[in-house]
């Protein structure tokens, strides 16, 4: 083929240009370390890279969510561990208080310590991390347990969970609502202390914690005893109709199904204040100074009324086996059977609803101080009841701790799984996008030597001319 001088130049140029551009391309890859610098370098590859990058950033998001969640879960767990220690401390204080040899003052001091521990526990229940309350459900900016003016704490949070995303469509709660930790325990149904003889009515009762049930004596009629010269002195706790039998020959008197008591002899100290006892422990004190003993069978009747929590008193009528009483302070509703009431007095009614740990500790502190002036047996019985409740609360707190621990473990596992997924995806991205140095450098040196050859031969080609030989 005929080759013109111009085309010879041009061919050399094309060769140089092609070789130079592949050298530049190889150098670009070496310098950036990337195989795909723009979508057109590998359109299929770029789609894959973008999809992998999405997966990687999702993985990173999940890991960041988990690391934030873990701080929260671990802070909550640490708080609960501390709480558990405090409850154990309370328990040992209560056990000390149950020691029969301890004095009332020492016991009151223990009560003060319990009150102090209660304050600490409230602080724990109101603990925050990064300005977020740990135990308020999704109410994270207000303290979950608010101290009210009467010294009670009320739950201000909710029972909802804060959740974090730990996978596509998978979430895990990072909190346990405070009410579930500190307030969930349910005692064993309605219970009466048994002082007055009141019992549960047929209709259910509703309420939480305890309320004071108060039975009051309104009127007292000693009937025929009055004619015999007896007079009532002092307070009487008798309620209802009670038989009275006097055996003049034996010199005895009996009130209802109470013990048969000897009448005081003349000149006895008891004469001016002789106390009769019924079987249920109700008492009636009589002045027998002007009393003439004679065989007598009659009855003494006392009317009374009843209220709970300082609410309005309701008169006790015959056959009142299902009286509705409402505690105005707590809203507790009690249906009470009054047919067996034979004694006035105050007694504690335990409702079946939820009672939170702080109420319980409040109760324990009060019991230790013995504000209700219970006798030793009564007090020990109460404290024994309290210990059982305290243990249930403790168990509840520990199970919440367990839940948090399990979640922490699951989150840690998920995070480390995603960490390895992330590494894998990163390496896949690198495989797609990054330059393979060995082959790129090889390619570059090949392009370089081709260019050198082209330059050398090109120069020789275009230098040749017939002119060199024409003189």
């Amino acid at each position, binding site marked *: 083929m005929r080759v*013109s001088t111009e085309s010879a130049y041009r061919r050399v140029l094309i060769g140089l240009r092609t070789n130079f551009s592949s050298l530049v391309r190889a150098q670009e890859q070496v310098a950036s370390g990337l195989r795909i610098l*723009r979508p057109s370098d590998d359109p299929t590859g770029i789609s894959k890279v973008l999809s992998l*990058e999405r997966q990687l*950033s999702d993985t990173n*998001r999940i890991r960041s969510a988990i690391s934030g969640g873990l701080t929260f879960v671990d802070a909550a767990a640490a708080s609960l561990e501390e709480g558990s220690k405090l409850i154990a401390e309370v328990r040992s204080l209560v056990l000390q208080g149950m020691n029969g040899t301890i004095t009332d003052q020492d016991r009151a001091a223990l009560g003060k310590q319990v009150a102090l521990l209660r304050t600490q526990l409230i602080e724990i229940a109101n603990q925050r991390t990064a300005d977020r309350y740990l135990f308020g*459900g999704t109410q994270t900016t207000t303290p979950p347990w608010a101290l009210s003016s009467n010294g009670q704490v009320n739950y201000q949070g909710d*029972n909802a969970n804060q959740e974090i995303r730990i996978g596509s469509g998978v979430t895990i709660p990072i909190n346990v609502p405070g009410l579930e930790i500190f307030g969930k325990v349910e005692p064993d149904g309605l219970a009466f202390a048994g002082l007055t003889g009141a019992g549960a009515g047929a209709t259910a009762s509703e309420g939480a914690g305890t309320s004071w049930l108060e039975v009051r004596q309104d009127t007292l009629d000693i009937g025929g005893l009055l004619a015999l010269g007896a007079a009532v002195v002092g307070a009487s706790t008798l309620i209802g109709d009670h038989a009275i039998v006097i055996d003049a020959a034996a010199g005895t008197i009996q009130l209802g199904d109470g013990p048969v008591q000897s009448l005081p002899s003349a000149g006895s100290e008891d004469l001016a204040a002789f106390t009769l006892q019924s079987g249920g422990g109700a008492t009636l004190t009589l002045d027998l100074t002007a009393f003439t003993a004679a065989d007598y069978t009659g009855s003494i009747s006392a009317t009374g009324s009843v209220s709970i929590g300082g609410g309005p008193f309701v008169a006790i009528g015959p056959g009142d086996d299902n009286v*509705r009483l409402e505690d105005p302070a707590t809203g507790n509703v009690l249906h009470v059977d009054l047919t067996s009431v034979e004694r006035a007095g105050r007694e504690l009614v335990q409702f079946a609803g939820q009672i939170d740990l702080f109420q319980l500790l409040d109760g324990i502190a009060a019991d230790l101080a013995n504000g209700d002036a219970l006798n030793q047996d009564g007090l020990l019985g109460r404290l024994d009841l309290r210990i059982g409740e305290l243990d249930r609360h403790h168990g509840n707190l520990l199970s919440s701790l367990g839940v948090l621990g399990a979640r922490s473990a699951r989150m840690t596992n998920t995070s480390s799984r995603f960490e390895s997924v992330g590494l894998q995806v990163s390496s896949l991205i690198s495989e797609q996008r990054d330059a393979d140095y060995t082959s790129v450098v090889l390619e570059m040196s090949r392009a370089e030597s081709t260019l050198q050859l082209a330059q050398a031969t090109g120069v020789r080609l275009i230098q040749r001319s017939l*002119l060199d030989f024409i003189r």
Partner: protein
Amino acid sequence: MSRIGLNTGLKALLAAQYALNTVGQNIANASTPGYSRQRVELAASHPLRQRGLMLGNGVEVRGITRTIDQLLERRILGQIQVGGSLAAQLGTAQEIEGLFGEPGGFGLGGAIDGLFAGFNQLAGNPADPILRTAAVQAGVDLASRFSQLDKSLTNLEGEVGRELGILAQQVNQIAHAVAGLNGEISQAEAAGLEANDLRDQRQELLKNLASLADINTQEDETGAVRVLVAGNVLVNRETSRTMSIDRDPSGKPRVAIQGVGGFVPLQGGRMGGLLNLRDGFVPGLLTRIDGLAKNLILAVNRIHSQGIPEGGPFQSLIGTNEIVDLDKDGDLKDELLSRSGLPFDISSGDFYVNVVESSTGTLAKHKISIDAAKTTVGDLLGAFDKIPNLTGSLDAFGRLQIIADAGFGFDFSSRVDTMPDSKGTFGSSKAAVGGSLAGPFAVQPGDDLQLAVPGGPGSTLVNVAFEATDFANPAKATAAEVAAALNADSGFQASGLVAESVDGRLFLLTAGAGPSESFELVGGSAATALGLGAKVGSTFTGTLGAVAPTIAGAYTGTSTDQLVFVPSGDGTIGTTPDLSVDVFNSKGELVKTLLVGDGYQPGQALDLGDGLTVSFHLGELSATDADRMTLDVVGNSDNTDTLVALGLNGYFVGSDAASIAVRKDIESNPGLLAASSTGAEGDNRILLALLGVEDLRIAGLDGATLGEAYGGLIGDVGFEVAAVASGAEASNKVLESLELRRESISGVNVDEELVDMVRFEQAFAGASQLIRVINELHDELLRIL
């Protein structure tokens, strides 16, 4: 003889001179673009006949011709057009490729990621104001990427228009020059001359023209060339027409030629390439980016509109999208809601509005049903007005405005009513009786209902007679209509009684509560039709305690339903043996039986399924008095997209890449970002749902996720650029090989010319020698004389 010999020598001298001159011209133009090698055509002169002999008469120069392959020249012109088009496309396409900023995470993909990262961070602590601001800024950033990309691509269209203008100028200059050369060539060739260099010049100009636009050339008998641009004459002989750029009705610049109607559809050359890109590739990209933006807005706003901002329910809210008066009658209310110029489609279904009393937290759930084929804007406003304590109106721009009465707020969340028996028809402490039948009822106008309430001497009798106007169709009166008719009656009002409709049944109850409240159903001709026949003559009395059902938890189900609670018998909560509450779904299927009798602790939470619990308090339930209560559980609080279309409580505003932005008031007050579905500040359900948008397969994006659609878009940009680049490269190679072939025919080889030079130099020397010899012969003869 001598004359002949001298003549022959002279001719040879001249021929050699011409040849040497041509060699010189060839060597001088060896590198001139478009130059074709010239050759002196030599031929033996016509012989002389003398004394019966044919004597050679020397050499003759027949002409100087170009060596050229016309067919090859045409093919080169065609290839230049293809190459010009691809080169123009490649430059712009590479520019577009750069606009996306991929890979490297500086593009839209990175910004979409950033938005989800922002939501994810905030989900970790929804009450944190810094994270809130960050989540909002991530949206602002994404929106600005969208609009930047849109603006850059739209600007590109403008730049293409400007470049077309400049190129048209060049076309006109070249066309003018071609016309001029046509004249010169025709003149020269008419005179029998060969206009070699002029033709080369003209061919070079045509090549330049071909690189700008797709041209066709035809040479006529005078040697002039006709130039056609996409079939329209641009140059004819010595005249050229002007090419100009005009705007079409849509405002897009297009190519026009003087004297040709309409626009010229260019395909080849630089101009063709630019037009091709502007009308094909760029609008295609814009459509896809708009699709991404629109579907992102739709998916995000669908979820966000059902959220509750940090400050709790709204006191007032204005939609961001405007209703348009499409029928231009000056009234917006008669527009069909689904066809009222809103940027998103509205479909048939329901959406729910919660009205919350701020002081008590009491929530009332209201359903608004939309029929895409029937519901008008006016119907929607009417539906809002029917909701107590809420007013809906249109502002001056045609945007929906909702305002709650003082002391009330509203939201569109799917949270449940925690106190579902707000009407008092399910064991409340009010005296109450319900109908045993569900509506519609056949009520005759004039039918009445007679009731007696304590008061006055003995009791006060209340008699309410129904009128035809009380009902849309008296034969099919609904419980709600009957209740409204009763409540509107002054005597009924004075009696202290209230009528309610629950689950399609009529309920009569006292306004007050407690055992002192009572009323008697005396009778009336409507009693039986209303399902109260069996109760005529009965007296109903209030109670001390109320069952007051309380719902807790968040509904996790996906379906929307109305649960109906019906007691199995009469009795007291926690007391009566075997008392239970049956829960039915809207299809009438029993979904749950709740044991609330003996053994149930009043106030204890019972599992209702789907994340909800219910607790009942100490009160009395009565099956004989038809106690009944409904609870709306809502999976999707708006399956119609009405909220998104109206722009109520959206995160984004706008409807495409150019208009997308974070709602202005959210941007200035990130607390308005509705992260919560319950109103609690630590609740992040909306954010968690928003995170799910990333995995959502979107119908509007052909079932792809946002990320996949974006990845596909980038891949296609890459494919387009790669295809144009390889096309341009291939076309360059073809052109290069055509040019090389042309060179091999028409190009100058200096060595060849040097050989010619030596050859003609020797011919010249030979001829000179001949003349000298003849001259000497003459001298010799003269000496003889």
